[in-house]
């Protein structure tokens, strides 16, 4: 599941990926004509909208692609880099860049392309860009307040507009297509030439638009990978017999006392319930977060057995099925609720005078197990704190 860095591809090799991505980037920019300052500036004077066409097509393509990969469960959107929003610096910085665009005729990426094929104006722009960076570094104390104010974090545009990601993608695709059409008309008027899109091209454009909306419809209307998992789990919940994986509290307690290092006890309730009470050594993985990548090394390993418990039996069975879906570990279900486990071992009631031998044995076992567990917890205090697994947030940005 993507992103492949740093889990599947190392950070070192990532630099090679950077080189390859850059080659693709530079090649396409140059092929599109972005090494020509006149072509770029045409956007602002209405004689050449290439920039808008390339830019919007690329943005929409990548956006739909990201949604599709996420839909199929191939890309974890929680892990990709979202440019953070700093309202004022974005607006002010953007405005300054716009003026720089008009005066200089490039933006950084395109100026590098231009310089690479020998354009002196591109080289001059890159040089100026360097001075600009230096200027910013020197003047940083003066602009620091603007630079850091209104830090909203990685907010998404669809959240700001109160719509789903797919709706926004639909909207943006439509806007892009309308913009392509309108700018085409403007271009023709400014350049004084009639429209010259031939039949074949028109057919290609139509099928491309069709493909974009078809892909968006797949994302919008077909169940995503989570939905498919959910559907399969609901089906299995009905017919599966869990007998063979059910574990009684007494058995689990003896596992804890004797084999604590060979088991994971997984609490799939929410965090609040977990904080209120949890079994000794339990790890909290709320059921809806089980597919997060950080838990893969617990749910998909062969060294330890996993014991699941939840609010009720059905929730635990569901967690067991999800775990089976996510990995190949040895998984069990605690047959009782966490509260009855607590009752059994924390609030021990001594057997009455007329108790039989079995009851007395059970009492003695539980009493010993309770003391042992307490001792173990005390002894392993540092390692029994709820496990906080740090997720690697990918750094990015320009």
């Amino acid at each position: 599941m993507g992103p492949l860095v740093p889990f599947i591809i190392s950070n070192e090799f990532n630099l090679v990926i950077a080189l390859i991505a850059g080659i693709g980037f530079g090649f396409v920019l140059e092929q599109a004509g972005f090494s020509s300052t006149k072509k770029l500036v045409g956007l602002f004077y209405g004689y050449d909208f290439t920039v808008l066409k390339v830019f919007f097509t690329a943005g929409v393509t990548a956006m739909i692609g990201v949604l599709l990969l996420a839909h199929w469960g191939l890309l974890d959107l929680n892990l990709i880099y979202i440019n953070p929003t700093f309202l004022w610096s974005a607006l002010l910085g953007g405005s300054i860049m716009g003026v720089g665009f008009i005066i200089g005729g490039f933006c950084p990426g395109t100026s590098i392309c231009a310089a690479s094929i020998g354009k002196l104006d591109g080289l001059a722009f890159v040089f100026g860009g360097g001075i600009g960076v230096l200027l910013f570094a020197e003047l940083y104390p003066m602009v620091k307040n603007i630079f850091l104010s209104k830090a909203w974090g990685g907010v998404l545009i669809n959240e700001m507009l109160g719509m789903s990601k797919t709706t926004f993608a639909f909207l943006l695709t439509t806007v892009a297509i309308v913009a392509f059409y309108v700018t085409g008309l403007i271009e023709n008027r400014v350049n004084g030439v009639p429209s010259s899109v031939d039949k074949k091209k028109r057919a290609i454009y139509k099928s491309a638009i069709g493909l974009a909306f078809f892909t968006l419809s797949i994302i919008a209307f077909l169940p995503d990978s989570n939905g498919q998992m959910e559907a399969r789990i609901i089906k299995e919940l009905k017919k599966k017999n869990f007998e063979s994986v059910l574990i009684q509290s007494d058995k689990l307690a003896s596992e804890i006392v004797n084999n604590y290092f060979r088991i994971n006890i997984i609490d799939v309730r929410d965090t609040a319930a977990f904080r209120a009470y949890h079994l000794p050594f339990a790890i909290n993985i709320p059921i809806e977060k089980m597919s997060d990548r950080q838990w893969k090394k617990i749910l998909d390993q062969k060294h330890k057995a996993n014991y699941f418990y939840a609010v009720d039996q059905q929730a635990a069975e569901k967690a067991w099925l999800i775990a089976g879906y996510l990995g190949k570990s040895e998984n069990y279900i605690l047959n009782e609720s966490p509260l009855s486990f607590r009752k059994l071992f924390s609030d021990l009631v001594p057997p009455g005078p007329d108790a039989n031998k079995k009851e007395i044995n059970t009492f003695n076992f539980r009493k010993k197990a309770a003391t042992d567990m307490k001792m173990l917890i005390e002894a392993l205090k540092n390692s029994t704190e709820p496990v906080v697994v740090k997720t690697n947030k990918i750094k990015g940005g320009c």
Partner: protein
Amino acid sequence: MKPQKYMNPYLAGFLLGLVLLGTIYVTGRGLGASGAVKSVVLSTVIKVAPEHSANTPFIKTFNEEHPDGPLKDWLVFEVIGVMIGAFLSGVISNRVGIKLERGPNITNKTRIIAAIIGGILFGFGAQLGRGCTSGAALSGMAVMSFGGIITMFAIFGSGYAVAYFFRKLWLK
């Protein structure tokens, strides 16, 4: 040989989108450009004037964030790739050569000065706005970042707003 025609813009956009998508899928981050300029410039400053760098908070922080040296940076490698890719494309399409492009009514000197001034503004603005057209606007759009998209609107909006005043640089 005459330079070849540029690629169809929609095809180029589609390919660029695929490059961007592939980059996001593999690395979890988008493309960029101005960040590499930053790395190169600041690492030069750190080499040339270490004392001054230590006293300049922005450079100091930058240095601390790059323990392996500022040039061992994703964007630096990516931009080296951009140069290679652009050059290859130029070679294939016969566009390589020392050239200077300018509007019809200005001298070469004016064009160079304007390019430097524009570069300064863009370099400064890209630092303030945390990214340029590639890193903030394009990559931001692909992941639906609000910040990236408003940066994009600010860049193009202000471009249109001032285009009239600088028309002599570009038009007849």
